[in-house]
């Protein structure tokens, strides 16, 4: 079948293409210098930086989305990769209210699988309030005697049942880890929907969720299903484990450059030192 033969060919093609053109895809090799703030590569890099931030903060009440890119430059580091320097505003993930500005660098590496991110942000929301909101999420979830389960969050009409909001927010935070790992210079992700959630009641003080999430992949427009396991204790780094199912092969190199078909495994993560 088509898929199998392409999977055999895939790695071969990559080997052929690698020395010829870095980032072989719809974009020609980039010239160094300032990028237009409206350019998609700038936005893409900013989003990668935010995935990393959302995962590292591990705070369902403090999730951020991209506001506007204010400044973007890119530099080629020979033999290493492309480094983006970004300044952008951020919004609250749910309310779209402005919550501060970030400075970030995103280094897309040739050899290692995931982008190296360095990010610093101002935060205009009341941090004490955010901590309290997180803690009340946490308390509510800890008080569950019956494990939370749910399907299709948000539903087809964009509605999220209030009781399932904390679970959804944790899915966003957990997916952020996954999306950060999967992102490349040309491939970006959004968490489209939680298809399924199941809570594991734990004996310790952690919150434990099993998810099936659907990611929206750009520019391929594919919807990728991933199993996600998220373990949360407020004030501690999120523990995330994931396994993605690949429904359609990534097709020609012109589209999904540098991505191989098949599944990706991310194991329990440790402290990241990648600056």
């Amino acid at each position: 079948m088509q898929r199998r033969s392409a999977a055999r060919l895939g790695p071969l093609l990559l080997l052929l293409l690698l020395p010829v053109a870095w980032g072989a895809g719809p974009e020609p090799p980039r010239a160094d210098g300032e990028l237009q703030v409206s350019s998609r590569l700038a936005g893409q890099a900013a989003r990668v930086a935010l995935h990393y931030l959302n995962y590292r903060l591990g705070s369902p009440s403090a999730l951020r989305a991209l506001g506007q890119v204010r400044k973007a430059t890119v530099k080629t580091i020979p033999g290493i990769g492309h480094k983006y320097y970004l300044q952008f505003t951020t919004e609250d993930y749910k309310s779209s209210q402005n919550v501060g500005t970030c400075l970030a660098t995103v280094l897309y590496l040739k050899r290692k699988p995931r982008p190296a991110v360095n990010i610093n942000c101002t935060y205009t929301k009341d941090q004490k309030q955010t901590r309290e909101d997180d803690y009340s999420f946490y308390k509510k979830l800890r008080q569950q005697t019956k494990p939370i389960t749910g399907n299709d969050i948000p539903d087809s009409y964009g509605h999220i049942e209030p009781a399932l909001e904390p679970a959804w927010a944790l899915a966003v935070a957990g997916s952020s880890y996954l999306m950060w790992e999967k992102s490349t210079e040309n491939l970006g992700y959004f968490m489209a929907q939680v298809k399924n959630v199941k809570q594991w009641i734990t004996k310790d003080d952690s919150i434990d969720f099993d998810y099936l999430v659907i990611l929206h992949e750009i520019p391929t427009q594919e919807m990728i299903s991933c199993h996600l396991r998220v373990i949360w204790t407020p004030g501690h780094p999120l523990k995330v484990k994931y396994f993605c199912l690949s429904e359609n092969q990534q097709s020609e190199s012109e589209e999904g450059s540098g991505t191989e078909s098949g599944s990706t495994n991310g194991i329990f993560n440790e402290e990241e030192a990648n600056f």
Partner: protein
Amino acid sequence: QVLRIFVADEAMWPLLCSYTLCQLDFWRGPGGQDVPIDVRVPFASLQAVKIFLESNGICYSILIDDLQVSALVDEEQTQMISHHFMPRSVETFNYASYHTLDEIYDFLDLLVAANPDLVSKIQIGNSYEGRPLYVLKFSTGGAKRPAIWIDTGIHSREWITQASGVWFAKKIVDSYGKDPSLTSILDNLDIFLEIVTNPDGFAFTHTKNRMWRKTRSINSGSACIGVDPNRNWDAGFGGAGASSNPCSETYHGPYANSELEVKAIVDFVKSHGNIKAFISIHSYSQLLMYPYGYTRTQAADYQELDNIAKAAVAALSSLYGTRYRYGSIITTIYQASGGTIDWTYNQGIKYSFTFELRDTGSYGFLLPANQIISTAEETWLALMTIMEYTRDHPY
């Protein structure tokens, strides 16, 4: 349970039609004052619905206590009955909720019936699965006047676009004779509006897969279904920025215009011959773009289009502060070949634009229904900017 709800005042209906109530299965629709509504409420929602009714002082009785016991329900019957629910008028139609294909097609007829001198419904073809492709024509007369084309729903999962299209249709009829600018637009040009450009895909998003994007055509030699209707046009067809894999979401199809949904528009545009602006609406990302998507070569009218886009985006933003980016397709979103507005532009339709509506990824395709009206309102301001410019710059 099936509840019988007594609505004393018909005007209350839009209020009642919060997302909860409107997504339920109506066995008997609103029939005017003092005629009750019968609603089938799934067990999981029962308590919430009853609390809602009681707290709003709405009387109800339990018509059927336990549907599983009752012999009334079988799949076909439910389908048939819910088929018959239709809004009585364009005034009671709920613009703040998402609708099914049948409901939108009923709306088209209601709109025409209520405004026969202004609106007519044209069938431009049939979809792959045989559904009619309808276009609303807004015209105050003349013979093949210069025209503006707007389409929504070419990608079926982008529900905010069809919902906005419905709102635009109502907005046009409400504005003619009242808003001087829209009135002068319609006194000089015609507007064509195709709300459900991909009805097969749209039906599929309601019944089987909310995230379906493409058409539902069968691809020979493949188990995978559908072609991306926004890669199927004859502009850079098959080039970089589309996939040759039928299983891909951006599959361009076996040849340009292979999709009936696309061919119908191509034929319409060519035979009309006087379309001056063409606007194709998608979601999400909050972008307003002009050609090209398939090539880095700048469009000849690049500067003019950029100026229009800048003004349109400013107008959009003025309402709720929603921020849009703008530029050519290839620099703003990504390289895409075989796209709609690349073809229309190359046909000579200078003012060719494409929108990506709200949001920027938090909800994505699943934009909450409570954002439909504000999204449509702000987008309308951008559309008006483009239409006014088209009116004022004949070519």
